[in-house]
């Protein structure tokens, strides 16, 4: 007889149903698998054979054909094991009368018959639920990420035997209880702004950057705390909402880097090393298209330490996702779209020796060397970085004002207030933060009075700014005004925004 079992595969972040059809015929014993399986899928033969035997079932003798439909879609990975095993049992009539039609089977088999966790379970469940499936059998080890999905019967199983007992009604599995998502503030790995000594300018820039969703570049000599400041970014970002958490969890699930909690509750902070390739940054791969660092940083921070050391092509590849918030990776096997709305935070030295502009050390670089160093970062990329601040190596021992050691929590409170203003402002549109405003929104929400306009004009002449920089300055001024709880952008806000164009001035 022919058995049909439903299983799922992933295409980017979207689940695609795959029917596993198995037919056992009389004839010379053979086991064929068709429907574009890759090596890992083909090897499921041996795993399934041992798993069946070790669970006390019989591996059918005869000519076995397993078809994975749709036949033109490439099947990858080991997540079909359970579905293949169940369909074999069904086809060889060892599982009579069990209703398997409305179930989706997911899981990899161990030789002993134990179920192993698979990656990308959450996005599969979400898509399958959307396709009308409501009953799932999943590996018990995947239960933590599945428990946040409500409105579906999800049965976590430890072994193949448990699955068979459940299907034949001997011993029902206990359905998973839906868990409530509880946001909790990012621990940031112990980072907190209160441990950062001084750096009032950078602190303020961090606050503005997070409040308005702006990208940030920190320029300073080695050892001044640029990395430490960057690590504090997640601690002042607003808590994840459930929708955001689910979205991030999906990506991390596909990448197989989900922690034990099962859902991502903290904003990601990704720090790819500067040897990173374009593919590792943007996503891709030969057999499977993996999400890249920019997608893993979705909803959080992508920190690029020593920006000029990154490959130019890798940095240029960031430009489009920085604008669009998504990345589409096209390969011969198809195009895959992953979300990539991240905050870019970069750091660099002011010059090759690192002492340019230092109070007590002399810079030994020639202007040509400095120019060559800075040229590594292209204008268009810089244009997308709204805030550029200097991090200096001043000892702040003598300075006692409270803003020198403010904690992340109190900065976060101000950030949340501004985010609330932004939510109000952009209600009903696809925009979340000031940084995402287009020309139309700028005209609508960022009116400058005559004085502000003349300040900008003067700044342009003096700093020789590009036309794109104008829009950037206005957006930052909008965020500064929001932090000031001011409805209008006042001259002092424009002045402050202009002061964050350090890099343009250095050039």
């Amino acid at each position, binding site marked *: 007889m022919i058995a049909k079992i439903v299983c799922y595969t992933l295409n980017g972040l979207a689940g695609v149903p795959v029917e596993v059809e198995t037919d056992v015929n009389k004839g010379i014993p053979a086991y064929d698998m068709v429907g574009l399986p890759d090596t890992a899928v083909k090897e499921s033969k041996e795993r399934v054979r041992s798993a069946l035997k070790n669970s006390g079932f019989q591996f059918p003798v005869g000519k076995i054909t397993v078809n994975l439909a749709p036949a033109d879609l490439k099947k990858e990975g080991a997540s079909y094991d359970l579905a293949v095993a169940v369909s074999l049992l069904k086809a060889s009539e060892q599982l009579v009368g069990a209703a398997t039609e409305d179930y989706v089977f997911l899981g990899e088999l161990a030789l002993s018959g134990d179920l192993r966790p698979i990656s990308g379970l959450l996005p599969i469940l979400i898509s399958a639920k959307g396709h009308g499936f409501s009953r799932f059998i999943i590996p018990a080890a995947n239960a933590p990420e599945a428990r946040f999905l409500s409105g579906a019967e999800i049965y976590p199983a430890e072994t193949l035997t448990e699955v068979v007992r459940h299907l034949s009604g001997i011993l029902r599995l206990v359905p998973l209880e839906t868990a409530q998502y509880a946001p909790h503030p990012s621990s940031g790995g112990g980072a907190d702004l209160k441990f950062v000594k001084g750096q009032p*300018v950078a602190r303020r820039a961090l606050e503005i950057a997070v409040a308005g969703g702006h990208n940030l570049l920190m320029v300073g000599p080695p050892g001044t705390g640029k990395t430490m400041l960057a690590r504090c970014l997640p601690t002042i970002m607003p808590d994840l909402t459930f929708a955001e958490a689910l979205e991030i969890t999906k990506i991390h699930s596909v990448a197989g880097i989900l922690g034990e909690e099962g859902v991502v509750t903290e904003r990601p902070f990704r720090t790819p090393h500067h040897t990173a390739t374009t593919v590792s940054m943007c996503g891709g791969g030969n057999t499977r298209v993996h999400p890249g660092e920019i997608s893993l940083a979705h909803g959080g921070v992508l920190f690029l330490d020593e920006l000029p050391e990154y490959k130019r092509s890798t940095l240029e590849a960031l430009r489009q996702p920085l604008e669009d918030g998504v990345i589409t990776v096209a390969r011969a096997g198809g195009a895959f779209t992953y979300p990539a709305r991240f905050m870019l935070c970069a750091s660099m030295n002011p010059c090759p020796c690192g002492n340019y502009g230092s*109070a007590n050390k002399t810079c030994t670089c020639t202007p040509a060397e400095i120019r060559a160093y800075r040229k590594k970062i292209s204008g268009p990329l810089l244009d997308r970085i709204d805030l550029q601040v200097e991090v200096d190596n001043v000892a702040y021992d003598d300075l006692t*004002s409270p803003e020198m050691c403010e904690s992340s929590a109190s900065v976060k409170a101000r950030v949340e207030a501004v985010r609330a203003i932004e939510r109000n402002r952009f209600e009903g549109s696809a925009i979340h933060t000031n940084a995402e405003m287009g020309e139309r929104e700028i005209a609508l929400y960022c009116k400058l009075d005559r004085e502000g306009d003349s300040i900008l004009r003067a700044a342009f002449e003096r700093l020789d700014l590009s036309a794109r920089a104008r829009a950037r300055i206005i957006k930052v001024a909008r965020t500064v005004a929001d932090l000031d709880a001011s409805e209008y952008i006042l001259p002092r806000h424009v*002045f402050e925004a202009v*002061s964050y164009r350090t890099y343009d001035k250095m050039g």
Partner: protein
Amino acid sequence: MQYSEEERAYLWLCACTELDDRTRVSVLRGAGDPAALFEGYPVPGAGKDRRGEAERFLSSLEKKGYFALTLLSEDYPENLKAISDPPLVLYGMGRRELLKERKFCIVGSRRTPAAALAFGKELAKTLSRQFVIVTGLAEGGDSAAIAGAAESGNLISVLPCGLDECYPAAHASLKARIAERGMLLSEYVPGAKVAKYAFFARNRLLAGLADGVFVLSAGKKSGTLITADRAAEYGRDVFALPYNVGVAQGEGCNDLIKKGAYLVTCAEDILSVYGFEEEKGEAASFTEEEERVLAVLKEKGEAHLAEVAEALGMRVFEVSALLSALELKGAAAKAGGNRYAAV
């Protein structure tokens, strides 16, 4: 551009033969009237079609928008004629009439502190109302002088290479801007590449052209000092910006002052030497808060943002907005590392 017969012959000798300047001078002396060169006066290694060569060379200059002037030309700068080794020919591009104006030279090393750069720019701007500013094309001091004088266009930039070359290459657009608003000058035939010795030779032109030389910054062994030396040799006034003890970029300046150069802290110091009064531009007006920030900066010299904020009891970001405003008004300059200085 019209050239007289003498000028043509002169130019032919200087641009179309491969002699050194000393031989050229002795040839000219021997010929008496330069026009005799076209009449077959013997010149070692010269071709036959001398007139044709001269024509072709001149039309190639014309095509690129360059002009040439010789020691015979009526507008060859008098100042330059007076030095011991004036260039026989000068090539120029831009506003030729600037040659007749009174000139003043501003030079500085490539490594000039930010506050000095801002000072140099303001100074160049003020002086360019009375003088044509003469400088080079390098980064640092030269660029500051260019930035200050570019607006009025009273600016001559002297290159150490042919006019169609650009060193540093990154200043190509700056060079084009100078050619448009002011003037480029060189003693080298178009196409001549940059050579080390050319900078020394060029520095003598900077000093030779100008009535006085202001040194914005100079390390102990800075090339800028060569310009100052030449200026002293030619009897020009030398001015220098004073520096703190221990600031490497200013040691040369302080040495100059020790040797008797004028100490300059404002444009007035230079203008008064030449009997000019400073034409006050529209004085920038400051708000009360800006005045307070300025007062702190002046008292401390160079100060970190946080220090200023502490002194005034203000928030750091409020001060950075104020300083940004002062910077735009040209009253403060960023010195790197979040430090600012009053200008």
